[in-house]
């Protein structure tokens, strides 16, 4: 019984998901507008419950399959709020395009459940099931616009490549299970520490695992699906792909690397360094030539995944001492702080960017950057939020993106990856070019057509909160930093 109380947020989210699905059957068509508000209120309620009753607790459930600690509670709360924000930003889209909103919101809620499970899973099979739950929800949501050929195409590409990547991920898991005899992260770390020589089959398993997870976060050799899927998916779902799914997989990767793979980092760092360098440069270079705003943001989010992988590569600092290669983990918690902070800052900024473009482009239909001309006249508020989110993504001061990039890059250079940080800074300079190009169309180019943009109250509220959060984190990050340090501490104290 005691165990169940720790899982109460997840259970409540499941009940909410099925509840929304059931209510959708029974209420008349003209009352269906209330569904998202029920879901938002319920998710906020579960968030408050999570904060009040579970904050500061720690336990491991079912022999370490699920871990309730500061780290998972922090991210569970973050994902609940993210879920509420995603539902709120979907309202306009759903009202305009879908006749049965129940399934859409229910599937969205189930993906929130999957993200919560990802943040607490301490074992590879559980993590795999959570990854698949998240991906299944996203496959359906990407292809949700049934009569839109672009959405169909995006869904087909996503599910075929997603299934391929999960097969690769599973092959990695099977190798790890076979050669280490366990799938629990902390037991894996113990076995790895006791073995001096590394089995090539095991290295293959870890490489397959990195490839599978790398696909899910769209890191460079495995990124080709991302722009197409981002472009074809409904815009709120694009936001989910870019923010929710990416953040959730990174949350899993951080826990897996820090608690399970630390002894192997000495062999794997070079691979992560290469992936990080490629992801940062290719993502930002490809964004330079895009004409579609969603594709541009897709490539920019690939670039941001590169910065986060740079953080993963910097988890250990490797030094040569007297012919011996030694790994130091003294500053690991700094780097983990940096990754978490950047995930959050990037998430907030990207969510604001996607939500504001989804409203600006509601009329035009296709999302060309040129169509932004005159948007600052049509809606100064939306343009301001979009500009702020773009500045934050580019990493300009007083916005959240500056603080997070500064922290992450500093931590990585403390760990000795200075030339990689130089590449990252160069990549963010490149990103400034295409970000400013978008703003040029928005603020300087004139448009003949006078298109008034109507903003629904719920979108206004969400955008205002995101805008304030971006600036607040940029100016005064210490409350958030305290929470993040608490989370990191729970993670790094395991070993």
């Amino acid at each position, binding site marked *: 019984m005691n165990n169940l109380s720790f899982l109460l947020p997840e259970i409540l989210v499941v009940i909410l998901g099925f509840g929304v699905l059931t209510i959708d059957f029974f209420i008349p068509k003209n009352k269906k507008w209330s569904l998202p508000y029920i879901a938002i209120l319920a998710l906020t309620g579960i968030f408050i419950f999570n904060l009040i009753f579970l904050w500061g607790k720690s336990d491991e459930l079912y022999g370490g399959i699920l871990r309730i600690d500061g780290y998972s509670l922090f991210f569970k709360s973050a994902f609940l709020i993210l879920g509420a924000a995603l539902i709120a930003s979907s309202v306009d889209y759903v009202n305009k395009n879908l006749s049965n909103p129940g399934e859409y919101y229910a599937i969205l809620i189930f993906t929130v459940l999957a993200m919560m499970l990802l943040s607490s899973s301490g074992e590879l099979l559980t993590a*795999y099931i959570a990854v698949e739950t998240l991906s299944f929800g996203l496959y359906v949501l990407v292809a949700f616009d049934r009569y839109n050929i672009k959405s*169909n195409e995006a869904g087909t590409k996503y599910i075929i490549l997603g299934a391929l990547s999960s097969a690769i991920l599973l092959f990695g898991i099977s190798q790890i299970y076979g050669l280490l005899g366990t799938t629990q992260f902390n037991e894996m770390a113990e076995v790895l520490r006791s073995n001096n020589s590394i089995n090539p089959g095991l290295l293959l398993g870890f490489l397959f695992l990195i490839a599978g997870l790398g696909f899910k976060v769209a890191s460079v050799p495995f990124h080709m699906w991302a722009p197409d899927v981002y472009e074809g998916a409904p815009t709120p779902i694009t936001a989910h792909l870019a923010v929710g799914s990416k953040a959730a997989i990174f949350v899993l990767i951080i826990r897996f690397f820090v608690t399970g793979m630390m002894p192997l980092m000495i062999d794997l760092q070079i691979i992560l360094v290469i992936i990080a360098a490629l992801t940062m440069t290719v993502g930002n270079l490809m964004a330079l030539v895009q004409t579609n705003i969603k594709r541009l943001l897709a490539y920019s989010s690939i670039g941001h995944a590169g910065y986060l992988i740079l953080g993963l590569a910097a988890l250990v600092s490797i030094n040569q001492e007297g012919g011996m290669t030694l790994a130091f983990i003294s500053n690991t918690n700094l780097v983990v702080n940096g990754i978490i902070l950047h995930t959050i800052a990037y998430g907030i900024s990207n969510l604001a960017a996607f939500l504001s473009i989804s409203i600006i482009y509601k009329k035009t239909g296709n999302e060309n950057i040129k169509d932004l001309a005159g948007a600052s006249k049509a809606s100064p508020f939306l343009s301001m939020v979009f500009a702020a989110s773009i500045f934050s993504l580019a990493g300009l001061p007083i916005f959240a993106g500056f603080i997070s990039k500064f922290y992450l890059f500093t931590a990585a250079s403390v760990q000795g990856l200075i030339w990689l940080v130089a590449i990252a800074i160069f990549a963010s300079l490149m990103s400034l070019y295409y970000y400013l190009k978008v703003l040029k169309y928005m603020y300087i180019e004139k448009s003949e057509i006078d298109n008034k943009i109507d903003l629904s109250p719920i979108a206004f509220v969400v955008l205002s909160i995101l805008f304030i959060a971006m600036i607040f984190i940029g100016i005064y990050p210490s409350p958030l930093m305290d929470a993040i340090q608490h989370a990191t501490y729970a993670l790094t104290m395991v070993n």
Partner: protein
Amino acid sequence: MIELTHFQVLSGLLFAIGLYGVLARRNAILVLMSIELMLNAVNINLIGYSIFMNASESHRALGHVLIIFVITIAAAELALAIAIILRLYRNKSSINTDDINIMRW
């Protein structure tokens, strides 16, 4: 005498054949079948390790548990994939992966 190596070779071959199928086939359904082949390669790998593992009973049983989950999730994944491909077929009258090219670069 069948040993672990046999399982590994079979599984590796099956995985490689599946990967080749995914890369070479142009029909979306055949691509899905190739992915199924890769997942079955994973199952063979797991069962081989599970039989020959030098560990406690519970750790060996974990392999079987993994296989059951893999089978279940693979079935769900294929059902979903076929539903989505059916939508594509309704709108486009083709499931050739070369034809899904509205969005590129």
